């Protein structure tokens, strides 16, 4: 079992934990954090491939930089949306937001 497999397995574990959090947590902030966790798992994959892949190169690092940037933007917008929602509904529980049904 090479190191690459170990990193990939770790990333898979983190990804699935994040996914479980996204699916089950009621608090929107925890959901956002879980999404960050999933993104991190993906980043871990990229970096691992960057070192242990068939063609080790710096591209993996660049990619994860972009990912981190986008994640930061996503977190900022997500928190902003959350605060607006909280202002109008006085809750941050995702199961109370069912506007999609209407």
């Amino acid at each position, binding site marked *: *079992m*090479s190191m690459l*497999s*170990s990193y*990939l*397995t*770790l990333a*898979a*574990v*983190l990804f*699935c*934990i*994040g*996914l*479980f959090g996204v*699916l*089950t*947590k*009621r*608090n929107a*902030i*925890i959901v*956002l*954090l879980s999404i*960050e*966790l999933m993104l*991190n798992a993906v*980043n*871990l994959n990229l*970096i691992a491939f*960057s*070192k*242990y892949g*068939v*063609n*080790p190169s*710096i*591209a993996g*690092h*660049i990619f*994860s*930089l*972009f990912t*981190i*940037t986008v*994640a*930061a*933007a*996503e*977190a*900022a*917008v997500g*928190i*902003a*949306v959350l*605060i*607006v929602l*909280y202002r109008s509904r006085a809750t*941050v529980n995702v*199961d109370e937001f069912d506007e999609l049904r209407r």
Partner: protein
Amino acid sequence: MLNFDIEITGEFVAFFVLSVCAIVGAVLAINFTKVVHTALSIAFTFVSIAGLYVLLEAEFIAFVQVLLYVGAITILMIFGIMMTKHDGEGKEPGRPLHDTLAAIGCICLFGILFYGIRNANFPTESAPFVEDNTREIGKALFTQYAIPFELVSVLLTVAFIGAIALAKREEESSQ
């Protein structure tokens, strides 16, 4: 299938410790009922991952990870937590069917991924890696990836302006 014929090296020990830290942090984050605890525990996971990045010779990324995730995003989340109320945490009725299905789905997904990883054929010996990767990243960003880099900066600007516009109180317009 599970043949753990691993030579115990310093790198592996470090990987093992850091990965256990990351997983423990993630699991705790899911299990805590208080949001602040969750945020802190996730931050712990992020730090562990940064350690893993160092282990993977990606020092710059590790630095960015600590700066952005631990420093920026987690703090942003804590601001979010502070600006909203969390009185009724853990008091809602559970959703057993939903949770069970989610667990089954995630475990199945993990099973599939694990199966794929185990069966994948990776090259055993890796080519030598560049030494000074921060410099290399800088070069790549400003040569080969210049346009994506600029686009990302635009994206960030738009996102932050959008976030401010969203979160701004609309008292002026409502009056």
